[in-house]
């Protein structure tokens, strides 16, 4: 075997590129994982938030690169996902063309799945048709004559059952054979011509010829005016291929296209509808010869399950229970794990304390680095658990039903049913919630969901509420003495974000993210047993991508904020005091108890002064005029700024500023008492009910969580949206706190 021309034929040296394409819900991912093993690399296609999955493997001595394209219904793309698939197949942008395409269809639904297949076989590239989920088809009583099908379509046909790992050797063998024969002769480049005329009627074929001639006279090279590309530019008005060719050939090509379309419309072949009609006609006639169904299509397990699971009342209740179960499991499970992580980090810190003397290095290690790593790792259990649930629900087919049933509710926010799970997860924590927006395929819906997810009251806001309510809301009872006022206020604060999210979502949808609402055409796949392997791989990929893309930024910000709170400042006295306390504790803690207490108070005072003179503290003092209208003094301002990495940090910061040390929590009586006693220079108390409520309202609406912002950056692939989130939420929080305070003091 000799390669004819190294520039156009796949050589034995560079890996063969194989693209996997198919409708959603055809088991493409399972097949991809089975073929590529563990060596999968994920990333994003340039400029878009479409996930790119490449697997590297070796068969029969050849290096293979598998590209898992996003699920596609047709090569007339209607979404960024589909656009990427078309671009990879046509070889534009930076992606080189694949050497072979495997088109994956579900054997139980060929009536619909073959639509894409009939388009794919026209591409200027060898194609193998893979009928996946073959076992389900056999079970449903479907018989398919694969030899005849192969003859009719002109491509090899292989049957597989990826979950049962059947047919994989045959598929690999077919791929290798196809690669070898395409390297030897021109056959692969000639066949598409005949396939196009077979499916599309004569008038359209004539127009395609005419347009191809037009492009030849314009000097477009043969590769860029293949029958496939020309036909796509004609049949997909204003699509990416039309744009591509108009760029190459000039706007006169656009005119030629318009003329062709007018001609065809006059002849009764209206574009774009005619393509679908003709292809389905071809498929119908083909399947009459090739496929027989021995059982009627309605008596399936899926239908019986759906009768219960999508029942208007019971189905809805079941759906709600399932989603609440997911939510509570994450919420309750992640708490002990987070505590475990914090315990581990605390232990590491104490080891560092043993070995490193008090000084800037120790401070950097414990408060900067260990704390920074901790603020990344603490999210991993929740992310992994949520993605485990999402993977199981999607793989078994239930996720689509949940979106179906929640759609009307989400319609109140201007969103679709797919937004329900991410928003609900955000009530526990917005970090996995924002990552979960990957299940939303409409780009604008996804962005709106990402932008309102942080408004859902997350668990990190609770400590602030508990502190403020415990210290300043009176313990009175309403409604005849059984409803505690404190509980009402807590509920109100927890739902404030959700209430505000409704108008925010609607405004976003009608201004910034305005656009034609994408149709809610949701396919409900057959129920099937989820593949644990695929799900676990997805969990691993998500966790890894979080740590690498978002985690590094979260860590960097933590260290930066630590630095802002430490420098500038002379810490020598602080270090001396700390060293002295530790040596006394090591000697005999009880004996020196009083001395230790006295030194500790001095240390706390030092900490407070150092924080005040640090960059963070000075910023807080500088912005005091800004926060006065909210009823705050500079200390609260510093607390808010310091809580940028994570909301609950405000508690420890307030403790430090008020010279109580950073170890206080929201339940500390000491902190509560100190806050109650805090006064302005003229003696009036700082904290009152309106101030406390304005602080809570601010935290309810603000974006003080760098982790969420970094995850938004990762999911939107740009800095624009996290910056926008931060700005709009801070403005919203400021206005909310302002109104609360100003109205509160007048009541």
């Amino acid at each position: 075997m000799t390669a004819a021309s190294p520039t156009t034929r796949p050589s034995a040296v560079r890996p063969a590129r194989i693209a996997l394409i198919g409708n959603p819900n055809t088991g493409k991912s399972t097949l991809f994982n089975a073929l590529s093993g563990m060596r999968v690399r994920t990333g994003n296609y340039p400029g878009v938030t479409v996930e790119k999955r490449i697997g590297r493997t070796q068969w029969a001595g050849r290096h293979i690169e598998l590209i898992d394209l996003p699920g596609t219904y047709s090569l007339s793309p209607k979404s960024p996902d589909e656009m990427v698939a078309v671009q990879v197949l046509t070889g534009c942008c930076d992606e080189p063309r694949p050497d072979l395409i495997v088109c994956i269809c579900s054997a139980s639904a060929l009536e619909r799945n073959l639509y894409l297949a009939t388009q794919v076989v026209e591409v200027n590239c060898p194609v193998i048709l893979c009928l996946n989920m073959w076992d389900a088809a056999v079970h449903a009583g479907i018989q398919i004559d694969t030899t005849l099908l192969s003859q009719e379509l002109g491509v090899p046909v292989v049957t597989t059952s990826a979950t049962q790992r059947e047919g994989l050797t045959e598929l690999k063998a077919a791929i290798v054979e196809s690669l070898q024969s395409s390297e030897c002769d021109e056959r692969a480049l000639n066949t598409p011509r005949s396939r196009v005329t077979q499916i599309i009627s004569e008038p359209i074929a004539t127009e395609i010829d005419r347009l191809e001639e037009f492009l030849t006279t314009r000097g477009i090279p043969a590769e860029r005016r293949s029958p496939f590309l020309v036909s796509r530019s004609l049949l997909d008005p204003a699509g990416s291929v039309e744009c591509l060719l108009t760029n190459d050939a000039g706007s006169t090509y656009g005119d030629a296209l318009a003329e062709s379309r007018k001609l065809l419309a006059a002849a009764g072949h209206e574009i774009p509808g005619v393509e679908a009609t003709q292809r389905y006609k071809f498929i119908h006639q083909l399947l009459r010869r090739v496929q027989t169904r021995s059982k009627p299509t309605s008596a399936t397990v899926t239908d019986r399950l759906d009768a219960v699971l999508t029942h208007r009342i019971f189905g809805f209740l079941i759906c709600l229970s399932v989603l609440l179960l997911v939510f509570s499991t994450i919420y309750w499970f992640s708490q002990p794990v987070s505590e475990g992580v914090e315990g581990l980090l605390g232990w590491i810190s104490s080891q560092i304390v043993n070995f490193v003397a008090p000084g800037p290095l120790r401070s950097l290690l414990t408060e900067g680095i260990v704390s920074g790593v901790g603020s990344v790792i603490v999210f991993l259990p929740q992310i992994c658990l949520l993605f485990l649930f999402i993977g199981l629900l999607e793989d078994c087919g239930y996720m689509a039903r949940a979106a179906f049933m929640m759609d009307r509710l989400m319609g109140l926010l201007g969103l679709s049913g797919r937004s329900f799970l991410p928003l609900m997860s955000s009530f526990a924590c917005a970090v996995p919630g924002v990552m979960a927006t990957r299940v939303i395929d409409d780009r604008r819906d996804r962005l709106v969901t990402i932008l309102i997810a942080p408004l859902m009251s997350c668990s990190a806001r609770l400590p602030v509420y508990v502190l403020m309510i415990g210290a300043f809301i009176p313990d009175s009872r309403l409604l005849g003495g059984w409803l505690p006022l404190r509980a009402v206020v807590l509920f109100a604060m927890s739902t404030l974000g959700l209430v505000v999210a409704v108008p925010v979502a609607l405004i976003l949808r009608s201004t910034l993210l305005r656009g034609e609402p994408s149709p809610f055409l949701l396919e409900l796949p057959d129920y099937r047993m989820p593949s644990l392997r695929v799900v676990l791989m997805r969990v691993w990929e998500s966790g890894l991508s979080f740590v690498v893309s978002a985690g590094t930024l979260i860590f960097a910000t933590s260290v930066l904020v630590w630095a802002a709170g430490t420098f500038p400042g002379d810490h020598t006295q602080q270090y001396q005091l700390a060293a002295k306390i530790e040596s006394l504790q090591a000697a005999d803690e009880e004996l020196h108890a009083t001395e230790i207490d006295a030194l500790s108070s001095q240390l706390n005072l030092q900490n407070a002064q150092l924080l005040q003179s640090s960059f963070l503290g000075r910023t807080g003092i500088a912005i005091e005029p800004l926060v006065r209208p909210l009823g705050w003094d500079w200390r609260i301002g510093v607390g808010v700024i310091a809580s940028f990495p994570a909301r609950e940090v405000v508690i420890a910061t307030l403790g430090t500023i008020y010279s109580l040390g950073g170890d206080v929590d929201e339940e500390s009586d000491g902190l509560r008492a100190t806050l109650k006693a805090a006064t302005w220079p003229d003696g009036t108390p700082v904290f009152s009910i309106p101030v406390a409520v304005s602080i809570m309202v601010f935290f309810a609406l603000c974006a003080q969580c760098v982790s969420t912002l970094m995850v938004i950056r990762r999911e939107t692939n740009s800095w624009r949206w996290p910056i926008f989130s931060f700005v709009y939420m801070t403005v919203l929080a400021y206005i909310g706190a302002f109104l609360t305070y100003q109205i509160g003091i007048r009541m």
Partner: protein
Amino acid sequence: MKTKRLADLTLGSSAIVTAISGANRVASRLMEMGFVPGAAVEVLRRAPFGGPIQYRVHSVLISMRIAEAACITVTDAAGWSDSVASMPVAELQLAAT
């Protein structure tokens, strides 16, 4: 031959698609998913609170909102072609085109 919109059909009924109105992306996508003239559609059930409706077309389950279903005009089996009225529904697909 009476034509209705898909949105007007009652739950549990079947019909044949005659046309999709509009030439925008929604119409194009509907046709690509199988709602072509001559295709048999079965109306299955509706989501709570007046949400989307589930249909079966080409042995696949697809749900869509009322707004999308209103773009599709349908007719009953008898209205499609008298000569094939006695054939089972599946066979009626594209028999007349």
